[in-house]
């Protein structure tokens, strides 16, 4: 057991810091720091910078053009990126579809799909959920009927994150009907400019626009866009979901959020002293900090284990549950620290001299509400508990 970084890891940390200092543009860091919605251009600009450095596909092995980092290196990278206010890497192509293609794709798909992800040229979105199929994903109804060398897709996907910036979508579709629901699902790649696709925005609780509904009407997709075998989609979906979960602890984001909360509590005056000297508020911060301290190690332990056994196990559900709760608690504290100054609608008080809160924190209430999503998506925390119950308890 050794928790200290090796000299190589410390050198790597320095390298990451140097890179962020020199390569992360101020306007991008400022946009992230403000906590508001990021534009597609900003996200894409950052992807390209990372891509040029070869640090975009951080979870990919070297043979596919990834940096081949260890879990500790990925952890260092994540923490530093958050500390410097780099945007999060949009995960759909990199963390989800990439591993799927590497595992299930044929040679042609590897050649055609992976480079577009690596170069940030293609923006993928995830077409899993439907209005009637959320937690019960296997009940999905969007169908793909074979017509010669095409599938004809009809149905509706929803909650499609950042679909408005995407040019491609990977979908789970039904290709077989007279069987158990899980056995009739296929995984297909779809160009979003194919005729018959319509995308409509969904406005979220805090007023932001990051998810969409996607409607498919007689959308013709070449059969070669099928990944893996026909009706093997459920296996692929499950594989993808465990990958989706590995970075879900959000340790780097929470470490940064903790610093922000402390800074806010130092700046805010309440009852004639800095809020951080209020024992009740200090206790709230300390409580989360303790949980986060443990979560850093839990996260590394599980990443280490996943590396050793070659794939993430069901215990990554623990990361999802506890990681999201810690992050949500921190967002709650930031909102609380600001008190009534957190209330203005994002952007409502734009004059810097009048702003109720430092510009950095103007979006705190919005972020708190938006972040309620993290315990709902990617398999809700209830579903994660069901997974743990099934796999760990042996009842």
């Amino acid at each position, binding site marked *: 057991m050794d928790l200290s970084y090796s000299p190589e890891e410390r050198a790597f940390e320095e390298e990451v810091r140097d890179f962020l200092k020199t390569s992360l543009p101020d306007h991008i860091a400022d946009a992230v720091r403000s906590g508001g919605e990021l534009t597609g251009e900003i996200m894409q600009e950052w992807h390209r910078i990372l891509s040029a450095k070869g640090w975009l596909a951080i979870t990919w092995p070297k043979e596919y053009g990834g940096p081949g980092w260890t879990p500790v290196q990925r952890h260092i990278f994540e923490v530093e990126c958050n500390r410097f206010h780099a945007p999060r890497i949009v995960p759909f192509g990199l963390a989800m579809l990439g591993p799927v293609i590497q595992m299930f794709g044929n040679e042609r798909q590897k050649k055609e799909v992976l480079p577009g992800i690596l170069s940030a040229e293609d923006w993928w979105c995830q077409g899993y959920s439907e209005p009637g199929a959320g937690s019960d994903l296997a009940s999905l109804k969007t169908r793909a009927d074979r017509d010669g060398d095409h599938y004809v897709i009809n149905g509706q996907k929803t909650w499609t994150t950042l679909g408005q910036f995407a040019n491609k979508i990977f979908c789970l579709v039904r290709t077989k009907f007279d069987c158990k629901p899980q056995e009739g699902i296929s995984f297909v790649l779809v160009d979003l400019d194919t005729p018959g696709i319509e995308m409509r925005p969904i406005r979220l*609780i805090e007023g932001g626009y990051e998810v969409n509904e996607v409607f498919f009407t007689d959308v013709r997709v070449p059969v070669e866009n099928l990944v893996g075998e026909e009706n093997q989609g459920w296996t692929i979906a499950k594989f993808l979901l465990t990958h989706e979960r590995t970075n879900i602890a959000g340790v780097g984001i929470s470490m940064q959020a903790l610093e922000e909360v402390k800074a806010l509590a130092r700046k805010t005056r309440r*009852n004639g002293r800095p809020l951080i000297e209020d024992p009740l508020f200090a206790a709230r911060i300390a409580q989360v900090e303790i949980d986060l301290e443990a979560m850093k190690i839990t996260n590394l332990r599980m990443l280490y284990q996943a590396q050793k056994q070659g794939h993430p196990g069901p215990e990554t559900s623990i990361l999802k549950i506890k990681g999201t709760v810690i992050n949500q608690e921190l967002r709650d504290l930031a909102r609380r620290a600001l008190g009534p100054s957190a209330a*203005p*609608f994002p952007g409502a008080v734009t*004059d810097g001299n009048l702003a*109720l809160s430092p510009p950095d924190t103007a979006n705190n*209430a919005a972020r708190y509400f938006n972040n309620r999503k993290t315990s709902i*998506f990617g398999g809700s925390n209830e579903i994660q508990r069901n997974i743990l119950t099934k796999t760990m308890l042996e009842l």
Partner: protein
Amino acid sequence: MNFDLTEDRQMLADTLNRYLADQYGIEARNASAYEAPFHDPTKWAEMSELGIAGALVPEEQGGFGGTGFDITVVFEALGKGLCPEPFLGTLMAARLLGAAGADMDALVSGETRYAVGLGEIDAAYDFENIATTATASGEAHVLNGRKSAVYGGQGADVILVLAKLGDAPAIFSVAATEANIVGYGMIDGGGAAEVLLEDTPATLLLQDAGGAVQDAVNAGRLALCAEAVGAMGATYEALVDYLKTRKQFGRPIGTFQVLQHRTVDLLTEIEQARSITISAAASLEDADATLKIAMAKNLIGRAARLVAEEAIQMHGGIAMTWEYSVSHYGKRLVMLDAQLGDTDQCLSEVMQSYAA
């Protein structure tokens, strides 16, 4: 002991509930709550005509209510309907004007809209630490300072401002036209304002106003508790409905025991919230009002956050959308904690009572 509402109050509640359900449903509500002027002046006038403001004012001052239970009946209905009309300002102004023996006809009729500016950026809940000052200027006074997050301040005609006159707290009446008011909408709907006072002329309403301000804060806190009880009830109903109708895995999600237990935990907390609000309402005119009401506001802060977060979670993605009412109820339930003293502020006030 009797926990029934009087006939008059029951009628007021019914009238108000019916009006809000018929005229001010969630779509109409959202349309006015999030767009300037962040409330609906027509609805304001209609609701005043229904007697809302009158119900918040005692008979001897020109109204027909003004007790703790009048306040809770009105604000529970406003909470249930998620109403963005700024009656909190009316209530708190009525307490201050009443203490000053001032005329309240224009308040009762709804003709004059009042907002009350107590808090500042560095004194959000601890009003004894304000920095705004008043100085005599001939017959009148002028004010200097900045009042922050003044609820309803964006649409008010008159703002009652707390300022230090010498060392003592005093309440001044400021015409909206005289002050620099920067209004804005809030994340949970409704409006507020920054009130910038730069040698702003003001009329002294109350000197040595500590007691009157505490009474106005008590009444305001009580109103917020009742508003939360109404909003929690509506959220709970929406949740239970959804648990019955939303199907996953071939069955209503309400059949999952883990959701059942968490939902009845909410029911328990809402019952507790209702009880402590009743306790607070009964105490409004008593010597221990400040303590009882601080207790209530603390419990409400905890319960309202729990109900909001759990209701959203147990709905799944749908409650994350603007489209669905629960997201708006959830925002209101969480944000009302930040008005007039949050969970921790109220807890520490209760703790201070042990120090005597």
